Every structure is written in C-alpha cells, then in structure tokens.
C-alpha cells in the first residue's frame, strides 16, 4: 500500500468506527508521540498556537507574569504566549544561526515576574539548550521549547519542561490543523490536558464508557481538542517522520550548495543541516533593501517566504529586529522531486543581475 493510502485507510477506519473525538485514536497517537520524544506525557491539541498558549499556562504563568522569549521566535509564538495573559519579553539573540538566545541577556532579564522562558528552534534547526537549562534550573523557572517548526530535528523537545509542536499543513507532519504539547512533569501535563477541554473533570469518552456520572468544571479552559480522524492520520504519518526529515535535509543541502555557488550567504552550516528538520531555508541578505527586493522577486515567482519573525511589541529588540530585517526564508519542497523547485527559488532570490 502506498503511503498516502495507508493514511487514508487509517482515517477511514476511524470514521467508520463512529467515534470522532478524544477516544482511542487520540490516546494511541499521544502514546506514540510521547515515546518518539522520550517524554512522559503528550497531549494532542488543536494547533501549535493552542499548544503554546496551553504550555505557558501549564508552566504556571498567567496575567501579571512575564514570559521571556529567548532566541529567534516567530511573531505567532509571541502572540500565542500573550493569550495566556502573561507579558512576552524579548531577549537578545546570538549573532549566528540557528540564532539561539544571548544567555547573558536572558540572565539579566530574569526577575520577579518571570514565570517561564520560551525558546524556539527557528526554521527547524535545533538550538543548543544546555546552558539555558542550567540557567532555568538555577532560578527554578520552567523552560518551554517552541518546536512548532522543528518536529524531527535532533534532540528538540527533550530539554524543556514542556515542548510545543505544530501539525499544521506546511509542517513536517501535517494533519491539516493540529498540535501537541509534551511535558516532563505530571502537574503541567494535567493542567494542559484539563484546559484543552474546558477544564471538565471527565470527557465525553469517559462518560460514554460509563466511567463518569456527570462532571465539574475546575478552571477556565478552552476547546483545543484534536479529533479522532486527525489523531489517526497523525499516528500514520508519525511512523514516516524520519523519511520526511531525510528528504528535507537533502533539500537544505541542495540549497546550501546552490547558494554558495551563487555567492549568497547561507547561514546554516552543514553540521547544523545534518541535525535539523528543515521547515524553510533561511538566507541572510546584506540589508533591508536587498531583502525587500529579493522578497518581491520571490513573490513574483510564486515562492512565498515564511511568516514574519520576532515582531515583538514595544520595540525591545535590537539583534532580533536587525536580523529579521535581513532574513528571508526559502520553501523546502517536501517531496523527492525538489531539485527544479529549489533551483527556481534560488534563481528568484539571486535575481537577474547574478543569473
């Protein structure tokens, strides 16, 4: 059976079962995902955005608190953190890819109201977290890994107290819309699990099986549930994640070679590509003008670049805003026949003068 037909069979079997939400498929996917990530707990949710909001709440942060954004984060991440009611506070970046946090700056910003630190793995490249972990431990502050761009990258999601993943359509593992939160501790996991479904003390599946007479509501939660067909699809695709990552790494290596040949600075070193799960291929241009011109050419070639980076409120950032002004990201084709598309993207990026 072809891979897509395996996916179709998994989804259709679930539809035929007649049970469409929060049941055995979701449990099986969560167990498989937790095992893959080496995490004690995995909670399937409706999106990566929801995963980030729930993870921040699961870490115990909320209104009146601050959450440090360490490293290069997407604007979406900052907005999702803000949904928790906590204020997102940006930290300066390391100057080189993968643009992890400037640890000295993070340390300076740790103060009373800081209740969690969120660190991203931008574009799917893993950021080294050993020192940040030590810093968090020294201050007893939970570390949340934003892996919404990095499912499948080496080591990601294994250092933080919580980690967030996206199963959106352009991701390494797509179910349309979906996400996952993994957690090391029982307490944050149970908070995330409760808030995903309106903080109800029992879910429909328990009541269906006669395990619960009625329910109480213990907090103010949400409907951030994944449903059974998407869970079945996610489990089917999780089994092939390594193959997907291998294809994406080949595409990234292809980009790096072609860009080097065209005289363009490709910030990801080979060793980083070998550990990444590339979602997009970042390229650093000389200045904002060069970036704008390149983006125009890419748009015209129907190669839209990925979403904006680090558009943080308050203009707090220096290194991130400088970096974001010069960064474009090229799409990573997710299939084997990507050479032509990579070539076209590079051509559009470089422009007619260099062609």
């Amino acid at each position, binding site marked *: 059976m072809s891979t*897509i037909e395996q*996916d*179709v069979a998994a*989804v*259709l079997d679930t*539809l*035929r*079962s*007649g*049970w*469409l*939400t929060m049941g055995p498929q979701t449990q099986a996917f969560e167990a498989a995902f937790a095992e893959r990530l080496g995490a004690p707990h995995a909670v399937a949710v*409706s*999106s*990566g*955005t*929801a995963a980030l*909001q729930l993870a921040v709440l699961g870490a115990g942060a909320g209104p009146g608190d601050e959450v440090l954004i360490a490293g290069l984060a997407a*604007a*979406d991440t900052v*907005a*999702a*953190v*803000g*949904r928790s009611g906590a204020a997102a506070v940006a930290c300066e970046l390391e100057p080189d890819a993968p643009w992890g946090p400037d640890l000295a700056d993070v340390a300076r910003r740790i103060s009373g109201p800081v209740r969690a630190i969120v660190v991203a793995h931008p574009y799917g490249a893993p950021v080294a977290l050993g020192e940040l972990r030590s810093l968090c431990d020294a201050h007893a502050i939970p570390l949340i890994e934003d892996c919404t761009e990095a499912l499948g990258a080496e080591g990601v999601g294994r250092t933080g107290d919580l980690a967030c993943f996206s199963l*959106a*359509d*352009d991701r390494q593992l*797509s*179910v*349309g*819309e979906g996400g996952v939160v993994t957690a090391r501790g029982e307490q944050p996991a149970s908070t995330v699990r409760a808030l995903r479904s*309106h*903080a*109800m003390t029992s879910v*429909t599946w328990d*009541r*269906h*099986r*006669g395990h619960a*007479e*009625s*329910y*109480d*509501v*213990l*907090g*103010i*939660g*949400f*409907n951030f*549930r*994944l*449903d*059974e*067909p*998407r869970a079945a*699809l996610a489990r089917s695709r999780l089994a092939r994640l390594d193959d997907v990552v291998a294809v994406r790494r080949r595409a990234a290596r292809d980009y790096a070679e072609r860009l080097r040949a065209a005289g363009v600075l490709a910030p990801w070193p080979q060793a980083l590509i070998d550990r990444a799960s590339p979602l997009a291929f970042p390229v650093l241009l000389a200045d904002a003008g060069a970036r704008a011109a390149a983006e125009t050419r890419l748009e015209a070639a129907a190669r839209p670049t990925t*979403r904006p980076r680090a*558009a943080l409120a308050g203009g707090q950032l220096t290194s991130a805003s400088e970096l974001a002004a010069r960064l474009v990201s090229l799409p990573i084709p997710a299939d084997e026949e990507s050479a032509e598309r990579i070539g076209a993207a590079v051509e559009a990026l470089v422009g007619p003068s260099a062609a």
Partner: protein
Amino acid sequence: MRAATATSTEPGVPLFDLRLEAEDLEAVATALRAGSLAMGARTAAFERAFAAQLGCAHAVALSSATAALHLAYLAAGVGPGDEVVVPAYTFVATANAALYCGATPVFAEVVGEHDLGIDPAAVERALTSRTKAVAAVHFGGYAAAVDVLAELCATRGIALIEDAAHTPSATLGGRKLGTFGLAGAFSFFSNKVLSVGEGGLLATDSDEVAALARSLRSPAAGAGLNYRLDEPRAALLGSRLPRLEDDIARRRELVLEYRRRLAGLDGVTLPYRDEDVATSSCYVMPIMLARPEGRPELRRFLSARGIQTSILYPAIHEFTAYRERFPGVSLPRTEAAARAELTIPLFPHMTAAQQDRVVAALEEGLAQ
C-alpha cells in the same frame, strides 16, 4: 459507538450513534489524496452551502463552536469590563467565551422546565450599562425567544448572539435560528446533528463581522488564535450537509413517537410542545423527572439494561470554577431544571426496537 457498556446480554442502546455513508468516506479520502490539507476550496464550498441552507450572507468555518462564540462576542465589541448576559443552562463555553474577551458573564434564568430557553424578562432585568451582548441558546434544537430578544437588544443597542450549537437547521416563525442576531455560533462536534469531530461555524449577515471572523481565525492576524478548519473536515461536512434535512426529519419522527409514549408516564414531564417538534432540529431527547433525587438510581437502572443516558446540562454557575469567581448566584428555575433533566438516546437510524427498549426500561425504572 462500538464500545457500549451494556451489562445485559443484548447490545446496548447508545445515547448517540454516528453512521457515515460511503460517499462521506470517499469525500474525505479525496481531500486527503489532494495533498494540501489547509483550508481551501472545500472549506469555501462548504461555507457557501451552509450559508445558502441557512439563508444568511456569510458563513465562516471554524475549529469549534467555542471559537465561534469567542469571535462573535469580539465582533459585538465585547472587551474587558463589559458584561455578556448568558443562560447558565448551557454548555460552559457560552460563558467561557465571555471570559476569553476579558468580560464578565451575567447569568439569566431559563423560562422553566417546559421551556429551557433563556427568559427575556430575566434578560431585561440583567441588563446594565456595561452589557455589550446577550447570548441565547436554542436548547436541544428548540427555539429560544430570539424574536423577542432581537427586539429588546435592538432597542437597547446591544448585540444578540445566538448559540446555535444544537440547531444547524431549525426555525422560529419560518426564519432559521442563527440568523436573528448579529451572529450565530454553530457546532459540528462529534455528537451533534451535523457532526465532523471538532468543528464550528459563525454565521452572519454583517460584512464587517464576517471579515473580522475570517481574519481572526488565522494566526496571521497576530491575535494568537488559530481557529481554522481544514480540508478533510470541510469535505466531510460538505458531503453530509445535503442529507441534513432527512436526518432531522427522522429525528422528529422519533421524538414524536417518544412523546406519544412518554406523555402519560408517571414521574416524567416533557419539555416543549408536540407542535414545537416540527421546527426543531431535535438534537437530543430531554425528559424532566418529577423526583430529581431518584435520577442517579434511575440512570444506573437504565445503564444496567444497556440504555445510555446523559445530563444536559449541569448549571454553569454551580461549577467549582464559577462558584469561585462568581459566588452567590441563585437561579432557582435553572437549578431545578438541571437537577431534573435526563437525556435519553436519540439518533437518526435508531430502530423501533431500540426505542421500545428505552421506553420499556424507563417505565420499569420509574415504577420502582
């Protein structure tokens, strides 16, 4: 529902059962094989079809009815410090969505055990200078008094939001429920009349409300929300929608049969009237027990005979999270209804034999 928990030897009668057709499965398979699963042509086609059956200008597909309520309140201008008048006899999302906006839910009474809709007189008493919206829930598929509420809200310059989670196609005075206010919030949760798993929709005649909902459902709006549906779910909904009226017609037959057979039964009253069934979407079959204190025992009795039941709804103001935040709320009619209600099995392909078993078990259980 293959995993029913009957302790009898016969297969159980589930509260709800979903049966999809081959064409539904094919529609989903086709959407999966298309590659890109993100909201696209199938979602747009379903939105057009749903708006057409409802007779409204815009339908915006969303991840849940909770999302639809959140966006509807935001569209009504609900923000920190504001109040939203809601019933307590509803799923907790109706009130939670007000909290998402930073607003305070203010609870108003239902009409009574015979009509579980919000009482317009109680709504009027609950209005203050801070009220930005009123939410009416069409419980079980039966219309709340949204004609009266629409007038009241218009007079006071307040938005009416319909929680139409139970009514994908039901009417009041010939007009579809979900089209009386600024916006209607619909649910496609797995046990709903039109179900997909997780899904919802906001319906509105307002171009501005629709534009806001379309923008805010995507994280690109910068609000930290992802309330999008996706193509496989839109494909399933699009495939099922043409059969919606047939499904509801069958639900109405079953409800009328229940009503004929339960009308004279001691210890039970039936909310709503026989003539209301023809315009209801008949989401569930609620009965009200004369002896609420006997409800747990009756449910165990029915469960032992393989009859699955539920309670719609525990009252919101009695939940721990709400008692902590909003202590001292007293709603005697709502509380009485919430203690007396029992939901018995109802689904379109329910057989006469299954219905016989439910009625017989109820008769026996109530006689004890």
